């Protein structure tokens, strides 16, 4: 009780309230109450519940309607959820609610190989990729590369079934500093660059090429798991 009377000193609005101990508080004050309750509540609050929590004689439905109008077009809005109300941030601002932590990870061997095949052979169908890799290409790998915007769908092949093809994107070229996919070195150049001769056994490249001695023991196991 003392809280309430003390409280009235704090906010000028409430002084008016004092005269009306038996009348309900002003609508403006009721709106404040609804606002505070909805803000702090962990769950949407029904009109009934508001009525129970607010002083006697209040009209929470009207206060809620006023509050809803006040929040129109704001960064926060009053949502009706079932027969209850809750304050929520405006959906168009949801992009602000994300805190991105970017973690850079090395692409898996499967993805690199698939990407390489697409880059060297584009436009290429999934079946063709599988033929070259000798293993099936998981959907996840393709999806990942598409999501990274390194590959995208090309035009369909005019072969039976009209399979889709994959091509690399401008984003891909930018990332790898290539003007066009044709700039990728050919097999001969790869060999002369020592990339074919001194090639690490499968799996080794994934971890680290530079120090082959370190991963002697892990490699066999790694191989078992890497292929999807």
């Amino acid at each position, binding site marked *: 009780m003392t809280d309430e009377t003390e409280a009235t000193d704090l906010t000028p609005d409430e002084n008016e309230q004092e005269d009306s101990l038996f009348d309900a508080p002003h609508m403006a004050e009721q709106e404040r109450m609804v606002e*505070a309750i909805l*803000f*702090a*509540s*962990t*769950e949407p609050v029904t009109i009934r519940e508001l009525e129970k929590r607010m002083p006697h004689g209040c009209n929470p439905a009207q206060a809620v309607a006023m509050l809803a109008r006040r929040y129109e077009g704001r960064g926060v809005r009053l949502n009706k959820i079932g027969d209850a109300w*809750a304050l*929520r*941030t405006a959906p168009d601002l949801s992009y602000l*609610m*994300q*805190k*991105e*932590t*970017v*973690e*850079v*990870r*090395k*692409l898996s*061997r499967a*993805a*690199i*190989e698939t*990407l*390489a*095949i697409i*880059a*060297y052979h584009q436009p290429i169908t999934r079946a063709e990729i599988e033929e*070259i*890799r*000798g293993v099936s290409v998981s959907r996840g790998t393709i999806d990942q590369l598409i999501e*990274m915007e390194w590959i995208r769908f090309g035009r369909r092949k005019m072969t039976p079934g009209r399979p889709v093809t994959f091509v690399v994107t401008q984003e891909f070229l930018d*990332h*790898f*500093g*290539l003007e066009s996919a044709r700039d*990728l*070195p050919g*097999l001969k150049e*790869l060999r002369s*660059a020592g*990339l*074919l*001769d*001194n*090639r*690490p*056994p*499968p*799996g*080794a*490249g994934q971890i680290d*090429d530079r120090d*082959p*001695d370190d991963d*002697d023991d892990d*490699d*066999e196991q790694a*191989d078992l798991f890497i292929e999807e």
Partner: protein
Amino acid sequence: MAEQTQLFNDQKMSVSERVAAEALVVDVGSFEGPLDLLLSLARTQKVDLLQISMVALAEQYLAFVEKAKQLRLELAADYLVMAAWLAFLKSRLLLPPDPTEDGPSGEELAAHLAFQLERLEAMRNAAANLMARDQKGRDFFVRGVPEDFERVRKVRYTATLLDLMQGYARIRTKDEFRPFVMDREHVDTMERALERMRPLIGFAREWTDLVMYMPDGWQGDAMRTRSATAATFAASLELVKEGKIELRQGETFAPIQIRRKAVKDD
């Protein structure tokens, strides 16, 4: 000493003060040390802490300690240390200053004690004021439904052009290596060497260095070279045993050479 205390008590302390001091004794456990007790005693003087009579306060304290002794209450050591110090302070305050003695005067010591008491009381009031403030979760509230920043852990995958080219190279040369995928890396085996050599020895009509039968790409790295050499040599011994080839070495450390065994073929 006790007598003296009693004397001063009679002179300087009112009855009510003495009663108050005695009442405190019962409560000794609830004090947080001598300073806390002194502050409580000082409050019974009902004066501003700055005007407090340190002599009277020292006496109250000493009376307290005396009373505790009578009641056979165990007082912690710091209460007794404080009692000794207050007795010293009192004598300093009451006796005329001894010009030969060094150190701070009784007044200085008393002033500092008064400061300490005042400061402790000020901090207690501050603590009370702090706790009387509006507090989060009691008087004001945070958002009930934290839409806490969805932590989008965005994983950005990356690869270098070298990765790409190596990946491609790996695939394009896979056929040659496919059967050996499960083999231990850097370790060539005799079986592998045999497999490699069998199709080749048919062509070895002339003496050729064993080195020629080493697998591709195994030179350069000492460990792999060693392993491949051993495997190739072991395989050649096996082939000799099978009667497929001949083996020769000109002298110690000279190149080992092999040749298809002529007998059968010719």
